[in-house]
Structures are given as structure tokens and as C-alpha cells.
């Protein structure tokens, strides 16, 4: 029974494919997966917009939107209708074709990454041997789309804003990719399916997720921070925040194209979270061995919702970083930490299992973290100050 529930979507897909001719089956199978991913994640996007607004409201001691529909749940519908009916303004001097293509390229590139995410047992859309490589290649096209948006406006400062957004995204690609190499080394394969398979064991009731090792935990934290920077979310949303003052890369967009940018950003965020789950949090594996009766896709989406909640939490709390501080942080802290993490992960592999492995691993990560942290604060001359009182 649990087996059927777990594989119900796979069985459904096989049932549908059985009715089609054999020559068309591969392409039909891919199309079905694509449609399923589009539907599921677009719905998740709509749900996230309302969850984010209500979540932010609760963090700020207020209700979120609660007038449209019960508990405000129809709010995304109202927002979608509004953005569809707004006038589509294109600047006179803008390059029309590029201006139109930029949001479309963004959305397409963001969706391409989902092809290799294992959403459940046997539920990866395409099982590539170099899945991780494909994911990073596809998600880098997002940066191209941002540059297209800034370039097409023919506005010197819009271009400058776009270039800074790209500088941010490129600087954070390096720690992002380096932190994933530890998971690749531990699993021994670039395939996302294989990485998840290597995390499905249990010792007693405790799972074998990579996040429960020192290098996995550090890798997870580094990956999430770099991922937030990649998707331009607070506290790394200077390209968007600065559009209040200097033309940001998408300030010339209105109506539906703006909604597409918004959609693209959130889809990218879900993809990064999905990859974090795959690499470090055990993918579709249940957290404890006595919970394996629940379907695998339920666990994947539950973990995804937890990560999204954490991202909303971080957005509600932290102010924005300035551009130079952002770059400083990436190159002077994240990159060295990622390299040291690699070293710690490989040391873990060669030390015998037991308490000594844990102690060595933790020290190898904690000591450089403290030293680098202190160095970063001192180089920016940040300190904890005490104040005197006049008498």
C-alpha cells in the first residue's frame, strides 16, 4: 500500500504512456514530466507569494492579506489579474526584441534546472550522469537574462545596475559550486539520483544525510548563503533595492513582464532550495527510519517548505548589504571557507569512523571559521563599542 502511494505518479505516467504509440513515447514522457513540473511549481509559486506576505506580516506583529478569500488565499489570483491588466510600457529608445525576450529567457532558464531534481523515488524527470553539471549550466543562463534586461533599456544607469547584479551573481557562483563538491566527493558521482541514494541509509533511527557531518553542515550553510545571493533575495537584494534610487535592471518593466521576472526569481529560489535538499538534506529520504511509510515526494516538498520558511525568516530580519560589502564577503570569507570545507571533507573520508573523525572534522572547520570571521570584522573595522556618559 505504501509502495503504491509512493510510486503513484510514476504508475500514473506509465498508464498514460501505455496508451500512446511506442515511437512517440520518449518525447511524450518528457512532455508529461515537463507539464507536471510546470504545474506543480507554478502553484507552489502562487502559494509562496501569499505565504510570504502572511509570514512577513506575522513576523511584524500584524496579519498579512486576509480580505481576498478565506485567510487571503485568493490573493495570488488578485495579484495575477492585476499584473495581467496593467499597461505594458516599453521605453521609446529600448531595443524591443531583447526587451521582450529577457523575461522569457529568465523563466525558461529557471525552469530548466528542475529536470535533474529527484522529486521522489524514481521521480527524476531526466536521469543524467552529470546532473549537477547540467543544473549549474542551466541556471547560469539566468545571469544572461538579467544582462539582457539591463542592456535593452538603453539607459546608462540601468546597465550599471545590471552589471552589478551580474557581478554579485558571478561572485557567489564560486562558493556555491565549491560547496557542492563535498557532496559529490562523498557520494562519488555527479548524478543527483546517486547523491540522494547514498543518503538513504539509516544507522538505528538516525539518517545518513550529509548535513549531519561537520563538512556537510558547513557546506549546507555555505550553499544556502550563496543560494540566497544567487536568487537576489534579501539580504542580498541590492540590485532590486537600489532600483529605488538608480535605475535597476528591471525598472523599465511593467505589467505581465514584471510578473514574469517575479516568477523567474521565485522559481530560481525553489530550484536552489531543491538542490540543497538533494545534496545535503537527503532528497526524498524520510528523517527517521520509522517514518519511511510516508511517500517520498511528501518528504521532498516538506523539506522544501521548511527551507522556504527559513528564507522568509531571513528576509524579515536582516537589512541589506551594500555592494562592496557583499563582494568582500564572497571573496574574502565564503571562498576560503569553501576551500577549507573541501579539505575537511576529504580528511573525513580518510580518518577512521568514530569520535576522532568528528573531533578532527569539527576543529578543521571551526578554527578557520573563527579566524576568518575575526579577520573580516577587523578589516572592515567593525567592533563592539562601549559608550561613556558625561558627568
Amino acid at each position: 500500500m505504501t509502495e503504491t502511494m509512493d510510486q503513484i505518479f510514476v504508475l500514473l505516467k506509465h498508464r498514460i504512456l501505455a496508451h500512446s504509440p511506442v515511437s512517440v513515447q520518449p518525447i511524450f514522457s518528457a512532455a508529461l514530466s515537463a507539464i507536471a513540473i510546470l504545474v506543480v511549481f507554478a502553484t507552489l509559486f502562487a502559494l509562496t507569494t501569499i505565504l510570504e506576505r502572511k509570514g512577513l506580516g506575522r513576523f511584524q506583529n500584524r496579519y498579512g492579506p486576509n480580505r481576498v478569500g478565506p485567510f487571503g488565499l485568493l490573493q495570488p489570483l488578485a495579484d495575477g489579474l492585476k499584473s495581467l491588466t496593467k499597461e505594458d510600457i516599453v521605453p521609446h529608445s529600448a531595443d524591443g526584441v531583447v526587451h521582450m525576450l529577457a523575461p522569457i529567457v529568465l523563466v525558461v532558464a529557471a525552469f530548466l534546472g528542475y529536470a535533474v531534481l529527484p522529486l521522489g523515488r524514481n521521480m527524476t524527470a531526466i536521469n543524467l550522469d552529470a546532473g549537477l553539471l547540467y543544473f549549474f549550466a542551466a541556471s547560469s543562463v539566468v545571469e544572461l537574462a538579467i544582462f539582457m534586461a539591463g542592456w535593452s533599456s538603453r539607459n546608462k544607469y540601468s546597465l550599471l545596475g545590471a552589471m552589478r547584479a551580474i557581478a554579485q551573481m558571478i561572485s557567489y557562483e564560486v562558493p556555491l559550486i565549491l560547496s557542492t563538491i563535498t557532496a559529490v566527493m562523498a557520494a562519488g558521482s555527479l548524478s543527483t539520483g546517486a547523491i540522494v541514494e547514498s543518503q538513504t541509509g539509516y544507522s538505528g533511527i538516525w539518517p545518513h544525510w550529509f548535513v549531519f557531518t561537520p563538512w556537510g553542515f558547513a557546506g549546507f550553510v555555505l550553499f544556502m548563503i550563496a543560494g540566497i545571493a544567487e536568487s537576489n533575495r534579501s539580504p542580498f537584494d541590492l540590485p532590486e533595492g537600489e532600483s529605488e534610487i538608480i535605475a535597476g535592471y528591471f525598472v523599465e518593466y511593467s505589467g505581465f513582464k514584471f510578473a514574469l521576472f517575479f516568477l523567474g526569481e521565485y522559481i530560481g529560489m525553489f530550484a536552489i532550495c531543491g538542490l540543497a535538499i538533494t545534496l545535503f538534506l537527503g532528497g526524498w529520504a524520510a528523517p527517521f527510519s520509522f517514518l519511511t511509510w510516508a511517500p517520498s515526494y511528501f518528504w521532498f516538498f516538506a523539506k522544501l517548505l521548511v527551507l522556504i520558511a527559513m528564507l522568509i525568516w531571513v528576509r524579515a530580519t536582516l537589512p541589506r548589504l551594500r555592494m562592496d560589502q557583499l563582494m568582500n564577503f564572497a571573496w574574502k570569507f565564503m571562498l576560503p571557507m569553501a576551500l577549507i570545507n573541501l579539505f575537511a571533507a576529504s580528511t573525513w573520508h580518510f580518518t577512521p569512523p568514530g569520535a576522532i573523525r568528528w573531533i578532527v572534522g569539527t576543529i578543521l572547520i571551526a578554527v578557520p571559521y573563527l579566524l576568518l570571521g575575526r579577520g573580516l570584522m577587523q578589516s572592515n573595522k567593525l567592533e563592539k563599542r562601549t559608550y561613556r556618559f558625561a558627568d
Partner: protein
Amino acid sequence: MLGEGILKGLAETARNFFGSFVSKERLTTVQFPEERLPQPEAARNFPFLVYDGDDSQAGLRCVACQICEKECPPKCIFIQKSSDKKPDYIGKQQFYPAVFNIDVSVCMSCQICVEVCPFDAIEMDNAFELSTTDRFRGLLWSREQLAKPNSYFHNIHPATAAEVDERLAEAKARAEAKAKPTVAASTTSQPDSQTTTS
């Protein structure tokens, strides 16, 4: 340690998040117009004219002395004295305002008119849901729109209204005692003084 302050900040917002489901202090929204907060006694918005009894013409306390018109800082009050007189709550013949207009789009709710009125005839209302579609005539209130009964005054400012009533009753008693000096020995006209003030 780098990140310690950020973690403490995250803990603080998490506390507010979970607190918003359990305590009223962490979720201070009042869902207007379904829920309303009661206004304090002293709350003021725009002035209104008080009348005693049921007749807004005969019971109007205002005697058109025009002090409020003179003291009003933005000069939003316009009064025209009548040519005839009518009796006030003591029985003395007084003028009354034939025209008493307040332009509420100019009024700044400073309450100086209430402070300087020697007859407790003008008081501050606390109604604030006053939107109108006519920007000019809808915001120029005439005497008929401004006149409200003393019972309304008691409703919105009970303590002040009680104090005003006491003062007026005392003044009336003193006036009546002065008017009948022969009967003033032991049986003063105390019982009579409470009849007309409502």
C-alpha cells in the same frame, strides 16, 4: 564569533512570529471596521453645539457672543447674531445665532473654541467617519448640522458633561436665589433648580 548577532536577531523575530499566534500583544492589529477600539474620554475631532431638552432651536445654549469666532486660529467659524432674543436655561433673554457655520475642512481641532466659550455651548465631538462626496458644501456645516442634544454629549464625554451640568445647575440655583431674595431664608429653591436641565 561572526554571525552571532545575526542569529540573535533571528531568534528575536522568531519569538515575535510564534508569539503572534498566542498573545494579543504580539499581534496588535484591530480589524477595522469589524472591530473597533473604544475612544478615550478626552478624544476630540470637530466641534458641535449643545442644546438642552428636545428642541434644538429653543434649547440651544449658544448666545452668539462671537468669542469663539474671534479666538479661532484658522478662522473657520462664521456667526451671524439674530435680531430677536430668546430665553436661555436660566430664563434670561439672550441673542441666538441665526447663522452658525463651521468649515470643517479648515478646522484644525485645536479645541480653543471650547476653552474660551463662557456658556459651555460648543463642545468637541469625537465622530471621525465623516467622509462626504461633496468637497465644498459637504464640509461646511450649518447650525442645524452642528446642534446635538445634551444626551449625546453625555454619551461621548460622560465625565465632562456631568461636570458641565453640575456647574450650570449651580449657576441656575444662584440666579434663582438672587431673583427671589424674600424666600431665600431657609427654604431655598434647591428642588426647583433640577427640573429643566436634562
